[in-house]
């Protein structure tokens, strides 16, 4: 699952999957702006066939939180 998330993030932000780490956040990835954030949300929803709740979308600000959120949906 984590590799799939990294692949999605890499594709959205135009970096290699190897550059995505637990600490990856808008502070580390220059391309992670508000538009890319929405693209990321849509891409993750499509990849994992889930629909994030409106309230949790702003909190998806680093890889660790994104992974935990998707795992919580999967459980």
């Amino acid at each position: 699952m984590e590799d799939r998330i990294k692949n999605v993030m890499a594709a959205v932000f135009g970096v290699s999957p190897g550059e995505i780490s637990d600490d990856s956040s808008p502070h580390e990835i220059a391309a992670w702006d508000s538009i890319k954030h929405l693209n990321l949300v849509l891409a993750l929803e499509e990849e994992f066939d889930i629909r994030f709740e409106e309230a949790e979308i702003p909190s998806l600000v680093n890889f660790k939180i994104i992974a935990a959120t998707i795992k919580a949906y999967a459980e």
Partner: protein
Amino acid sequence: MVVRLEETYPYLLRDEFRGAKFYQLSFGNITTEDLVSQAMSYLTHWEPDFIIVQSGLADCKPEAFTEAQKAIINRLPGRFLGQMKKYVYHPSLIKRRQIFRVSEQSFRKTLKKFKIVFSKSRIFWLEICAAPSYENERPGILRRVADYNKIIEDVYGDSMVKLQEKVLQVDGLNADNVHWRANGHRLAADMLIDRIGPKYDMHGIRGRANG
């Protein structure tokens, strides 16, 4: 009854564990998802030893209107607003409409997410507490509180701090039926100290001024 800052359980814990670093995040009337979102964005890289969460009442509280509907009502011109406001929290309307801000499924997911993000921390989640007489104001609240507490117990097991019965025994809830009196805070602090202090080798971190 006014509760002084020094009487609240976070303050009492700071007093008990003077060598520990504390970070307190408090918001009134927000859902657990909103609270957890704030906590995660600030604290994911800190990985504290212990996290104490008191949240859930806003999630399960029955309402007569949705938040969006309430926002519209609040924008009504003065003369209509006055008339409408008495219906917003009218018990019979709440009883009939039973609208909730957060579904049980969503609440469960939020709890799981928080547990995954802070997997290296020991999380204590306080049982949601409400006085029996709150049922008169918010019909349906007691059943919802019981259901949501069951979810907390399912997800957090014995890390849920069961307070409800004990708080009621010491008359620890305020006249508003939800906020704690000083003795409710003292009870919560003592229960947390009992669980954190001896079990997790807090030697050197504990220490009150009076010994």
